[in-house]
Each structure stands twice: as structure tokens, then as C-alpha cells.
């Protein structure tokens, strides 16, 4: 089979898999968050943590719960990382230094999973499992809860209540993430991903050298790394490592896992707002952005004009032979379109255009289809922006799903679209300004700037993937990227929940022929264009000096 046929087949297979689970999973998630019944295990948990599961929270209480929970998580994880030498199964590794521990703790709680460290040479099994893997579940569930709260803001009327954060969080973990993760961990193990607690193997290589090969509880972390759009690999090279991602089949499965919840949430959205067409419209906008980027990345990688790539047929540097260029481009596009940030190839080695597109994927604000929960709420916020701009053109003051977009609502949306570029551009500008921050760069000229831009795009959008080349384990990068992740994750959560609160208070406007239809192809187009224009206009100058200058060279 030719590479092209194999590549197209992979994409087709992926789309079929997603199409098959879209409805059942989406409907199931809608039921999870609308059901009034608690499972026995959940009830027990609520009693232990002393939460009243029947309490309906105001947006502010919901927000404080989410922020308080995340703050506690950061502190706890920070402590685990700093003190890991005191924990069992530490494999003899020391505690992390403060800046790195701060960076890693915020990174995992903010669902970013930027890793300034190499997992296999820094962390023991306990820190990986009790620290990182736990946060992989919790941070994903927190994002999911915020998205659900925003949906409730749209569907509830004349109320100041948005549901219960603790219930949403618990159900997200217990009823959605855990069962799927358990099932697919087994599938991954069957596919060849390792899962053990053995000490490192000593292997004598063909060249005669002795190499220490680390195993570990990989599959259990691998599955939630993808399912929760986290991306923090057990090993430094992430999904390029044969123990994390041994073959083309597991590769496809991993891509499926990182897309499955963000995509199916569009269905959940449609079901919960009682208009499935709205869900399809959001899905369509996500798909347009994902599809266009996939075409661009794949085309750029397959048709690299360089001498060597022409000779071998494609730009293969930094890509695993077992995944080929198509499998790598598909993974790269999906991992940056979701906020996953797992990688199976080195994005720095991509062509200027290919690298630029995966960077742009993140700069869009992680909405194609975005992270677990965050993709949906990002998309809804941008739909509101599109409605505000386009809605006036039908001769009515803007409204989305019957809720008016007035000055308060648009202020929150405006701050939302301001927060991420603020963290990204300021952080990157400082990094580009000083000699010692520039010393971390591997490339020079535009490639070097791409490394900086990529790092901050990844941090501020909670992606977590890296443009290999940047030595990020310095105090500046650890701190600045940590702050970027916090701003990118939590200011947006504050704004989204405030928006949900404002929307829930409103009396809905009935739909008439004069209402802007937000489920038609035209609006899908406007929605996608809005996403691209907002990001494009914000980042074009910076991109011109980085990936565009590389691509045109």
C-alpha cells in the first residue's frame, strides 16, 4: 500500500470510529450531567468530603469551588514533586527543584502537561501515578464541569444557579473518565503498551553497549494522558516512545482517544440545549478547522521542497518510521487542535509551514475540537463573538440561543479573547528580548523565534506540547510558562463561569424568522472564520517573523 493510501485509510478509519461513538457517548455524557441520581460510591465520597450534592450553586460559588479545588491540587502536587524522595517507589530520584515543581504542578492542574523534565529520569512511580495521573483525571473533569456549567447558563432561565461543581467533577471522573480509561488501558496493553512495576532492565545493545530500559505503569497513564487531553508522557519522548505507542494501530487508537471526548461533547451540547442542530453546528465548525489544518500540515510535510525530503519522498526528520508522515501529521494536528500536547513526532522538525500550522492550531485558542470541556466552552464563547459581529447584520441586537449578548456579556467575551494573547505575546516578547532567555534556543533566526512562540502558545493554551529545541528548564521559562498556563486556564474559567451566570439570569427570547439561525452552514462558516480572523489578526506579525519566514525561505 502506498503511503498516501495508508494515510487516507487511517484518516477514514479515525473518522468512522469517531462517528460511531459520537452519538452514544454524547448522549451518555448529557445523561450523566442531567441525572438526579447519585451512585453509592459517589454518595460515600460526598459524605467523606462533606459536600451536599443537592446544593445548587451560584456561578460565584461554582467558580470558587473550581478555583479552590485547583489551588489545593497545585499545592498537593507541588508537595508530592518536591518531596518525592520521601515517597515509596521513587526509584531513587530526588525531589524537584522549586521552579520546576511549580511549573510541573501548575502544568498538570491546568490540563497543560507541559514537561520541562524528562519523566523517566526525574520521576518515580508514585509521583507519576498518585501525582500526575490523578491530576490527569481531575483537571480534565474540572474542564468538563466548567463546560457543563456554561451549557446550563444557556439552558436555564431566570436563575442564579448553575449546578454543583463537586457533583459535576465527581461524575466526570467516576462515570466518564474512569470507565473509558479502564477499558482502553486494557486495549492499549493488548496493543503492546507496557504496564509493570519492575525495575529497569539492563539490555546489551547490538553495538555492545549496556543500556538501562525503564518500564513502569505506562498504559494506565497513557490512556488518561490522551483521553483527558492532558499530554504529559510517561517518557520524555512521549508517544514517540515504543513503550507508550508501539505501532500504527495504537497510534490511531491514541489519536482517537484524544479526540473522542471533545468531539462527542458537541453532541452533549446539542442534547442539553434541546436543539441537536446547535451541537452539529459546533461540531461542524470544529471539523472545518481541524480538517483544514490537517490538509495543510500533511501537504506541507509530504511535499517538502528540500533536497533530502524530495529524495525520500517526504519530510521525515523527527518522525517515527512506524507512523510515517501521514500518521505523524494526523497526530500532530489532532494533539495541537485538542489541548493534549502529546507528540509522536518532533514538531520542531516539521517544515516551516507545517510547524506554523500546528502552532496556529494552538493560537486559535484550542477549539478544533479543543480540550476536554475547554474546547466546547472556547467554541461557544467564540460563537457568541461571531453572533455579536454577524448578528447585527440581521437587524437585531445580538442573541445566542435566545440569550441576549449585551454589554456585560460581550465584556466577558472580550476579556476571554484578550487573556490568552496577553499571556502568549508578553511571555514570548520577554523571552525574545534578553540574551540569557535567548540562550535556551537551539535554532537561530526565525526557527529560534518559532521555538519561543511555540512554547508560549503551548503554555497559554494549555496544550503542553513542545517545539523540541528550546531548553525550557530554566527559572524564567518555568516561571513564565507556569504563569501563562495559569492565566490561560483560570482567567478563562473565571470569565466563562461569569458568562454562564449572566446568561442563566436572562429570560430567553423566542426564536422567530427574524432570529439569526446559528445552526445553518452559513453560521458555521462565520463561526470558523471568526476563530481564524481573531487569532490570525492577533498573531500574524509574530508568525510572519517565525514560521512564515521559515516557510518562505
Amino acid at each position, binding site marked *: 500500500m502506498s503511503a498516501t493510501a495508508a494515510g487516507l485509510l487511517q484518516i477514514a478509519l479515525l473518522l468512522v470510529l469517531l462517528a460511531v461513538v459520537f452519538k452514544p457517548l454524547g448522549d451518555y455524557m448529557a445523561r450523566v450531567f442531567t441525572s438526579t441520581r447519585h451512585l453509592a460510591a459517589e454518595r460515600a465520597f460526598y459524605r467523606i468530603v462533606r459536600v451536599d450534592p443537592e446544593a445548587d450553586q451560584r456561578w460565584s460559588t461554582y467558580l470558587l469551588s473550581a478555583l479552590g479545588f485547583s489551588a489545593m491540587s497545585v499545592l498537593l502536587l507541588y508537595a508530592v514533586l518536591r518531596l518525592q524522595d520521601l515517597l515509596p517507589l521513587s526509584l531513587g530520584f530526588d525531589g524537584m527543584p522549586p521552579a520546576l515543581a511549580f511549573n510541573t504542578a501548575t502544568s498538570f492542574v491546568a490540563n497543560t502537561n507541559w514537561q520541562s523534565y524528562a519523566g523517566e529520569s526525574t520521576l518515580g512511580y508514585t509521583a507519576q501515578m498518585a501525582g500526575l495521573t490523578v491530576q490527569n483525571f481531575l483537571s480534565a473533569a474540572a474542564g468538563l464541569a466548567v463546560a457543563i456549567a456554561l451549557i446550563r447558563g444557556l439552558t436555564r432561565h431566570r436563575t442564579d444557579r448553575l449546578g454543583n461543581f463537586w457533583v459535576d467533577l465527581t461524575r466526570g471522573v467516576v462515570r466518564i473518565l474512569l470507565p473509558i480509561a479502564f477499558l482502553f488501558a486494557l486495549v492499549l496493553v493488548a496493543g503492546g503498551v507496557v504496564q509493570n512495576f519492575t525495575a529497569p532492565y539492563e539490555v546489551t545493545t547490538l553495538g555492545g553497549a549496556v543500556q538501562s530500559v525503564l518500564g513502569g505503569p505506562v498504559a494506565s497513564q497513557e490512556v488518561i494522558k490522551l483521553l483527558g487531553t492532558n499530554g504529559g508522557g510517561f517518557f520524555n519522548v512521549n508517544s514517540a516512545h515504543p513503550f507508550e505507542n508501539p505501532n500504527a494501530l495504537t497510534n490511531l487508537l491514541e489519536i482517537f482517544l484524544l479526540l473522542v471526548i471533545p468531539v462527542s461533547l458537541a453532541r452533549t451540547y446539542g442534547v442539553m440545549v434541546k436543539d441537536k442542530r446547535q451541537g452539529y453546528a459546533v461540531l461542524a465548525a470544529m471539523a472545518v478547522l481541524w480538517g483544514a489544518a490537517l490538509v495543510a500540515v500533511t501537504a506541507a510535510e509530504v511535499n517538502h521542497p528540500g533536497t533530502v525530503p524530495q529524495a525520500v519522498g517526504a519530510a521525515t526528520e523527527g518522525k517515527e518510521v512506524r507512523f510515517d508522515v501521514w500518521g505523524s501529521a494526523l497526530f500532530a494536528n489532532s494533539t495541537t487542535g485538542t489541548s493534549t500536547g502529546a507528540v509522536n513526532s518532533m514538531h520542531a522538525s516539521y517544515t516551516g509551514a507545517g510547524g506554523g500550522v500546528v502552532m496556529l492550531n494552538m493560537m486559535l485558542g484550542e477549539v478544533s475540537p479543543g480540550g476536554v470541556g475547554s474546547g466546547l466552552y472556547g467554541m461557544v464563547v467564540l460563537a457568541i463573538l461571531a453572533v455579536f459581529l454577524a448578528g447585527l447584520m440581521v437587524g437585531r441586537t445580538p442573541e445566542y440561543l435566545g440569550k441576549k449578548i449585551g454589554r456585560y456579556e460581550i465584556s466577558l467575551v472580550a476579556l476571554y479573547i484578550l487573556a490568552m494573547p496577553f499571556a502568549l505575546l508578553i511571555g514570548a516578547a520577554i523571552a525574545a528580548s534578553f540574551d540569557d532567555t535567548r540562550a535556551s534556543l537551539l535554532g537561530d533566526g526565525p526557527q529560534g523565534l518559532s521555538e519561543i512562540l511555540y512554547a508560549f502558545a503551548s503554555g497559554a493554551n494549555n496544550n503542553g506540547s513542545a517545539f523540541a529545541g528550546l531548553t525550557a528548564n530554566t527559572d524564567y521559562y518555568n516561571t513564565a510558562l507556569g504563569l501563562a498556563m495559569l492565566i490561560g486556564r483560570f482567567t478563562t474559567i473565571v470569565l466563562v463561569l461569569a458568562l454562564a451566570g449572566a446568561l442563566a439570569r436572562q*429570560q430567553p427570547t423566542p426564536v422567530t*424568522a427574524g432570529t439569526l439561525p446559528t445552526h445553518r452552514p*452559513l453560521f458555521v462558516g462565520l463561526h470558523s472564520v471568526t476563530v481564524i480572523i481573531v487569532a490570525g*489578526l492577533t498573531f500574524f*506579525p509574530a508568525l510572519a*517573523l517565525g514560521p512564515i519566514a521559515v516557510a518562505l525561505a
Partner: protein
Amino acid sequence: MTILEPGRKQTVTSVQAPRVGAGLFDARQLVSSLPDALRKLDPRRMITSPVMFVVEIGAVFTTVLAITDSSTFSWWITAWLWITVVFANLAEAVAEGRGRAQAATLRATKQETPARRLTDGLEEVVSSSDLRLGDLVVVEAGEVIPGDGDVVEGVASVDESAITGESAPVIRESGGDRSAVTGGTKVLSDRIVVKITARPGESFVDRMIAMVEGAARQKTPNEIALNILLASLTIIFLLAVVTLQPFAGYSGQLQSMIVLVALLVCLIPTTIGALLSAIGIAGMDRLVQRNVLAMSGRAVEAAGDVNVLLLDKTGTITFGNRQAVELLPVAGVEEPALADAAQLASLADQTPEGRSVVVLAKQRYGLRERHTGELPGATFVEFTAQTRMSGVDLADGHQVRKGAAGSVLGWVRDHGGRPDIAVDDVVDGVAAAGGTPLVVAELRDGEARILGVIHLADVVKSGMRERFDELRAMGIRTVMVTGDNPVTAKAIAEQAGVDDFLAEAKPEDKMALIKREQAGGRLVAMTGDGTNDAPALAQADVGVAMNTGTSAAKEAGNMVDLDSDPTKLIEIVEIGKQLLITRGALTTFSIANDIAKYFAIIPAMFAVVYPQLDALNIMRLATPQSAILSAVIFNALIIVALIPLALRGVRYRPLSAAAMLQRNALVYGLGGIVVPFIGIKLVDLLVSAIPGIG
């Protein structure tokens, strides 16, 4: 509810009123408004428009830079940045100037006039400005009414042309719904006593002047929201430009401050920022041109959002009076005979209904109208509430009667006739169709008999059905409000094509209907003129009071229609929508413009260090300087080019939201992307001829 009184001024404007569209724009207004535009450069006034304020700061900044480090390029950029600011101010000044002309005419009516104040029955002459709330003044023929008030005594015809532009005098009388008079209008006949209802300086004309001049203009909710979005876009671009310098430094080509300011000004949404307030003022102005006075911009915006229109049947949907539309003879009677009798019976009947019978007889049966003098010895029987019929007794003993079925049948029986039962079916048929049956009978040669039935009906104004269809397409539901019984109401509702009707409506019912609609999240618009309409007018989101109405109604509504034409509600809705569409279209256009500007400026900025970026210079602009200058000049010129559109409003046609979005997104979105590529290229062709630039 309006109860029609004879002689009441009825403006029956053509239903095919001119569509919302062009207002006059004269290029000379640009020149005459220039001094105003320059005065608006005051930063304290500029700050109300955050986007243009940033441009002004940029212009000051580049001026300083141009002085310290003079070059052809820096002076050209500086000059065009100032021009950009002036153009923006010009847009607002032109819009305000148009209102000011109207204000001047109004002010002329506000001259100090002597007032004959009545204190304890004694008259004293004071100045109109000394009048206080509750003062009584006497006004006689030929005198100007000194202040707003209600007539408390007498009846007079008043010339209100100074306010309405309508030359026909109107009747004002104490009590009822026609008691309000406006200061500055002139009494033509008779004597009235007016109780002053407005404080000095707060009269209707004062408010009108303030509104049309834009002095009382406050930003509307949507305008504020849009301003917030524009401000945040400005901040984003500020961020993009400020952080570009470190990236540029990293890349090895630091940019001059002039270029960065130029880039910033080109990116921030100056087009819509410059035109936003002009669009708002022009929207109010378009209403004033149609003789509608909005008391707040908020109401104009709400008009665009209206979901439900409450329309009074009488005068809005139908002509003011019932008209004879058909003659239905009973068996054995020829139609012309019936027509002749009907005409005879109506000759003395001066009510509009009576006149319409004569007109029908003439038009349909060619019967010449006879004058009462042609029938010597005839005795005319007037309609009374007791007999409920009218008619004539001719000299030869021939008697004709027409009137309510029961009365006329009784009259026939009294004269020994035996009415055919078939007539009952005809009568019921007319009533079921929503009409009023009038039975015609005669007594000839001692024999009384029924001749037939006159069908009186409400006549729906032509073109109403089409307008309601359009409203429906726009998502607006029309509800007809009438005092008629449900059967009649239903028939007329079907005939007119309204969506719903409220029959036997009392003011409380109307109020309840408005509240019910609003509870469902809908916005309601209505017209009204009576004091008992006032609560409903206040409750409605858009309440248009008729100028002929009471001052209570005018106070309660948020708009006043000087023509007192209830049909205008539809136009008001269209103007509201047009205002919002214009805002949205120019915002979209403004943002879409940025793409071309990036393609012009970014390659120019980094031509030295990254020559490969010249591939982005798809317009093939001559030099880096000419490229940047061309973008700045285009950015300024597009403001002036769009002033007429901002003032006139974008073309509006009643379409569904989906169709409207498609059209506008194509014209202003796609157009906004394409136009600047062409425009910047054309400017560049000229600019590149300048020594030191090209």
C-alpha cells in the same frame, strides 16, 4: 382604545410608503462641517470614542517624532494620521449638522411670546418664559400658544405646521383625547383656555431640539456593547504591535516608532470607530425625517428587536369608517331598485357610513346623487338611538327606511308587511363575514316590504396584507386590536392577514396582552393616543404616541409620531433594523479590511531582514514606505467614502434573518476583504510618485 370622532384629523397616508432608504447627502456638508470636526479634536471629546482617541494619541506621537527626526515619510504619515482623526470627527459633525438645521426651524417657533395668564378670573400679560406648571392661559384666534398644555375650556382649530409640517389645521378641545396643545403652534379660530403642563425649558419643542441636535443623545446599550468590543480589539492590536518590537529586535530589524504607530492605526477598527456615533445620530435623523420623534436612542434600537406589533384595527389596518361594499336584494327585487331606495334613505345621512351608500350607488349603479332640494315636500327621518333607522318620507307617500335589521323588520310589520324569512339568512351571512347589515325597506302604495340588505364592511387598506407578510418573514407577529366582537374581528383579521387579533379589547386587555408577550421574552411595539392608552404605551418596549393624542399618551410613549399615522410603526421597526444592520455591516467591513493591511505592511516592515516575506506583498506595492503610507491613506479615505453609507444606512429589504445574513456577510464581509486590496494598490500607484516615498 381610540374611539373615532367625526372631524378628527385622519392622516390617511398611502400604505405603500417610501421604503426606508436614502436620506439626502450633499458633499458640501463635508466642507461646511469642517470647523466642527476640528473643534472635536479636543481630547476630552475624543475620549468618548476609544478607537479614535488612540489614533489621536498616535498622531500626536508621530508629530513629535516627525519634528525630532524629520523625513518626508514621517511627515506624510503624521499628516494622514491627523486627517484620519479629522475625517472621523467629520462623520459625526455632518450627522449632527443635519439635525441642527431641523433644530433651527424648531427654535424659530420658540420665540418669547406674550401669554395671557388667567389668575382668579383676571387676565394679565406675562412672557411665555414666566409660565409655570398649572398656569391657565387664554389663547384666541391669531395668537400663538405660549406653552405645552391641555385645553381645559373651549374648542379651537390650531395650525401645528411648525411642528408637524402638516398645513391642515387640527381641532383641539377640552376633555377627551384631543386636548393637548403644543407651545409655538397657532390658534386659527375661536378661544381656548390652556392649562400649562410643561416647565419652562422642558417643553416638547425643547426636547425635540435637544434630540435632533444630538445634545441629549446618550449611547444606546448595543452601541456601548459594540464600543467595548472595539476597545478590546484595540487592546489586542496594541498588544500585537507592542510585542512586535521585541520580535523585530530579535530578528535583527528594529522598527521605527512611526511605522509601529502606522501599523497600529491601520489595524485597530478605525472605520467603524469613526462612523459609530454618526450611524446612531443618522438613525434618529431618519426617524425625524419621517416626522417621528424618538425620546431615546434606546427606543430606536428596541424597534429593531420588536417581535410583536400591536396594531389598532381602525385607522391602521382598515380605513377609519365602515363603508358600504355590496347591496344584496331579496328575491323579487332588482338590484337597481334596491340601490335607488338605499340612496334615497341615505341622502340625509351625513355619517361616513351614510355617505358611502351614496357613493356605492353612484359608482356601482350609476345613480346620480340627488340633492335634498330636488325632492320637494320630502321629510327626512334622522337616525336616533331609539329608532335605529333613518330614511325619507316623500311627498307622494312613498317611504324608505334603512337601519338595523330588528328595527326595520319591526317597521315593516307595523305597516302590515310580512317580511320574508329569507332576509334573516342574508343578515346573518353579512354579520358572519364581519360586516354590518343594514336592512332597506319601503312603504309604497300602503304596502310595506323588505328590499334588501346593505353590506357595510371595514375596508382593509390596500397593501396591508403584503406588509404583514413581509413582517412575518422578518419574524414579527402582528396582532390586531379592536373593540369589535370576535366574529367581526376574526373576519377582518383574516382579510388583512394579521397573525392574531384581540377582540372586544379594553385598555386593560391590551395591557395584559403586552405583559403576557413580554413575559415570554418578546418585545412589543404599539401605537396609542388616548389617556387610557398611556399605561400600555409606557409598558410597551416601543410605544409610539400620536401627536394628536393627549399629553399623557405622549409622556408615556417613547416616540411621538407628528403625522399621527399609526401605520408608521412598521417603518419605525425597519429604521431600527436598518440602524443595527449598518452598525454590524461596517464593523464586519472594518475588521475584514485588516487582512489586506497586513499584507501591505508586514512585508514592508521586514523587507531587509527577511526578503522572502516579499512573497506576501501580493499587491506588488512599490516600496516599503509607499506600502505603509498607502495603507494609512486608504484607512483614512475609506472613512470619508463610507460617510454617506453611515448616514443613509445600508439598503434594507424585509427578508428573513438567514437571507439577510447571507447577503450582508457577502457584501460587507467578502467586500471588506477584497476592497482594500484594490484600494491600497490604487493609492500606492499615486503615492509611489512622491519623491522620497516611491
